[in-house]
């Protein structure tokens, strides 16, 4: 599958407190309201500028911090179709996959804010049509996670198989 979209670029060490600040804790059972605050302390225009299908690109240790699944959830609700980072914190990574949002790890230093990208999920490559020849390859997602992603997340996966399958 080829995903196409525009890049919203962030830096290193974006924590779950950046993605969805603790002061909005009381909105966790009101997802549409909560989603309005996604990334507001680091990227106030994120929610208003991102279009469905766009990519969130960042540096190292993306999503560090808490286990709040609301973090990848509000990013997904903003319309982001894939998260492309240099590295991701473990719990965030697992949560995003469970919600059906791919997290791809590669060198993101040359990817620019606002540029269009094409991501070949199965092929493991990212192309920039504006800069032919600038192909980036990303690390393989473990097999078990690929199967969860294929079903659209952990809930549809368990609904289908009734159990974990290795």
């Amino acid at each position, binding site marked *: 599958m080829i995903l196409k979209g525009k890049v919203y670029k962030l830096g290193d060490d974006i924590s779950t407190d950046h993605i969805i*600040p*603790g002061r909005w*804790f009381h909105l966790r*059972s009101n997802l549409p309201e909560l989603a309005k605050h996604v990334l507001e302390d680091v990227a106030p225009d994120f929610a208003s500028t991102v279009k469905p299908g766009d990519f969130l690109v960042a540096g190292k240790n993306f999503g560090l*911090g808490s286990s*709040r699944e609301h973090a990848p959830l509000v990013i997904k609700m903003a319309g982001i179709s894939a998260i492309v980072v240099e590295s991701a914190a473990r719990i965030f990574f697992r949560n995003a996959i469970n919600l059906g949002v791919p997290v791809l790890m590669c060198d993101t230093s040359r990817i620019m804010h606002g540029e269009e990208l094409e991501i070949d999920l199965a092929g493991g490559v990212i192309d920039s049509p504006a800069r032919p020849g600038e192909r980036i390859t990303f690390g393989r997602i473990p097999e*078990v996670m690929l199967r969860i992603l294929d079903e659209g997340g*952990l809930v549809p996966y368990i609904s289908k198989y009734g159990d974990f399958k290795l």
Partner: protein
Amino acid sequence: MGKTLSEKILTSKSGGEARAGDIVIVQVDLAFVQDGTGPLAVRVFESSGFQQVANPNGTALFLDHAAPSPARELSNDHILLRNFARRTGVRLYEVGDGVCHQLVAESLAGPGEVIVGADSHTVTAGGLAAFATGMGSTDIAMAMALGKTWLRVPETFRIEVSGTFQRSVAAKDLILYLIGLIGADGATYKALEFGGETVDRMAMPDRLTIANMAIEAGAKVGLFPSDETTRQYLGTMGREDKYLQLAADPGAVYERTVGIDASTLEPQVSCPHTVDNTATAAQLKGTRVQQAFIGTCTNGRVEDMAIAAAILKGRKRHPDTRLIIAPASRDALQKAIAAGHIQVLLEAGAILDPAGCAACVGIHQGVLGDGEACISTANRNFHGRMGNPDSYIYLASPATAAASAITGEITDPREFL
């Protein structure tokens, strides 16, 4: 070939050979959620068509983050969790009982168990030699429903600690120093396994403090061996029957070994806004703090209150510095009252918050004002963590926080004790 602690526990819980890098399906001994992650887990559980949890006795809900609730939305989340507990027969810990990780250590965890919690500091139970790790609401909802989960067996960093701590230097300084050394992503996806003569002599509260912060280096677990100290702790908490002696095999393979000489450590402080941004307390002298916060799953135990009380006895907090105390559990609070620590702290000008997460997560009971700084015994100093993106959090030990409350600026506790 010898096995690491992770490999040993996951081999036993998966019923097959578990080696670093393998993906295994394991039986879960305890799955839990708290009031921030629980409502989503319950909704996922129910909308997936599940009605019964696989193991009600091994499932727990904790009302600790918003405790007592500061907002109607959160009160309603509490109602949702109470109703779920009533329907399914799982354990419910009420508002005022304390922070989930402290209660897991006090009343549930045992060596060799697999514990998964919808909270990143689930790693705390690694102090009791449990393979304990944090996940999100959906993972925990499925673990509650099926009684199992999948895990990748982590590679292990062995942290070998020797030497005796100097006066007023302790476990918190060691773990802050280690994170400063290896970085906030230095152990991502890895297990940290602690060992060495200093660890063998280390008391359980100190082991829990260190295990608690393994996640701040990105680690999946922070594991201690179980020994006589573990057996005694479990005995005190009324469940010695859970004791199992566990240690890594002599020939275990480690990805990396880090040696630390505890006798060379000075009081450490993590500066805003990352935990690996460490300095010594002495280097930060002169940094004003408007709030000192002693509590949380990292340092809210009775032993932490004892250290703070020893420093604050007969002294007063600085007039420009609020001092907030939040015991991590009802048991810690009662023991601190019985020992007279709370009285000492109140006389020094402290505010006593209920047992629970209190000011840690930025929703109530100590939100910082614009431009303010807090010295905190918590585990995280991220931008905005304590409810205000225009504020600053410095992480330190209870001794350093107490000393700083007296002077109103970051202070090396050896000036007082």
